[in-house]
């Protein structure tokens, strides 16, 4: 592990100044960064700890009814938050999958996003929920859709000196269900071989007016399964439509084979998990949840 300077800024502008020094990495939970640095896979001359920043460590309901989640909030807190559990269930479910209990007590959404692993569990749920991220730097702030953050495995589009400060979720709507299912050989402490998140919004007549599907671990970045969404749009969530959407989503997957799974198996999992996640959404909508 290389020697580094450790910074504990108490304001966002202090944090941005520390980042501007170059060769800096952000630290929230450290559950990715610390093992990567110890194994020599990442280096940093400066480590900037975000956990003293109020904006990064709180969850606030917004004026428009949406939610602002600090990038450094631990995922176990995200999972337990009543608003998230009630209105953004896909995220609550995923937050409990980011590693063991011990890891969940530290790992953050910001870290899960910026580590940019294609298998990041929080990302497909955030994408289908319409998340945006707030990027802060010495030059100011910008808010962009979460999907635009990913450049490739382990790489984001953030420029040097930029910091992901918060995640913004839109106000929840009626007749909405969301869920995330992933597949892992073990029931805990595992990386998704494939993961599928979906959010379905129906009108009062039961017709789908908005469908979003996002996939983990089957492309260089998390991706939307647009073809699957198109199958659903304007339809009812019946078995035939679900199966067709699952088939279409499978077609969007471009996985690789690695030690965790083969490409063939991952594609097959996309079909199975999409079917299951959509069925879950249907059941939730029927139950009026």
């Amino acid at each position, binding site marked *: 592990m290389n*020697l580094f300077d*450790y910074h504990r800024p108490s304001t966002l502008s202090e944090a941005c100044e520390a980042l501007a020094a170059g060769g800096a990495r952000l*630290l929230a939970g450290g559950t990715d960064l610390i093992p990567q640095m110890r194994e020599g896979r990442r280096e940093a001359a400066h480590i900037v700890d975000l956990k003293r920043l109020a904006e990064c460590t709180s969850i606030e309901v917004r004026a428009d009814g949406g939610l602002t989640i600090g990038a450094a909030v631990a995922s176990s807190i995200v999972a337990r938050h009543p608003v998230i559990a009630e209105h953004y269930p896909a995220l609550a479910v995923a937050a409990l999958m980011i590693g063991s209990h011990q890891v969940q007590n530290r790992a953050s959404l910001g870290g899960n996003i910026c580590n940019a692993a294609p298998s990041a569990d929080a990302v497909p749920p955030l994408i289908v929920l319409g998340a945006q991220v707030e990027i802060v730097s010495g030059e100011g702030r910008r808010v962009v859709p979460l999907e635009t953050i990913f450049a490739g495995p382990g790489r984001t589009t953030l420029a040097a000196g930029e910091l992901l400060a918060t995640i913004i979720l839109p106000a929840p709507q009626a007749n909405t269900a969301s869920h995330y299912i992933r597949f892992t050989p073990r*029931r805990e402490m595992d990386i998704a071989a494939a993961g599928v998140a979906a959010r379905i919004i129906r009108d009062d007549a039961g017709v789908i007016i908005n469908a979003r599907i996002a996939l983990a671990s089957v492309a260089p970045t998390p991706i939307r399964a647009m073809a699957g969404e198109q199958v659903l749009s304007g339809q009812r969530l019946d078995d035939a439509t679900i199966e067709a959407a699952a088939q279409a989503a499978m077609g969007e997957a471009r996985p690789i084979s690695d030690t965790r799974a083969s490409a063939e198996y991952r594609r097959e999992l996309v079909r199975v998990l999409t079917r299951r996640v959509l069925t879950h959404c249907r059941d939730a909508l029927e139950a009026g949840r």
Partner: protein
Amino acid sequence: MSRIMLTCRINGETVSALVDPRDTLLELLRERLGLTGTKEGCGNGNCGSCTVLVDGAPVNACLMLAQEAPGCEITTIEGLSGAQGLTDLQQNLAEAGATQCGFCTPGIVISATALLAENPAPTDADIRRAIAGNLCRCTGYDKIVRAIALTATQRGG
């Protein structure tokens, strides 16, 4: 190579130690403070042998920098029992035969202590979920789960 002086709260005491800036919390505990009850099984958060409580929450000490420790209340296995003897949980684990080689045991004790503080009436599934981040290779988990369940029952859960 310069060392840094850190002051932390460990097991209810304020302690200071000279650390290498790269030290993890685990290295601070084991190498600098001589608190060797917390073990290293993997060094990257995949076995739970290094589980400690940070502000009451179970955390892998190998995934935290020592420099993050100041300002936190940290509890290690050494801090759970003392002049007052073993906790009821520790007693039950010992009596149930829930420890064999003992290497995973401190981490399990910490995770289970946190579970029972948060959930006084856990189901077996809750218990297994709470210790799913603590790998044990010797016991098969059975007697560990029973001892934790017994502790909850005895406490009136």
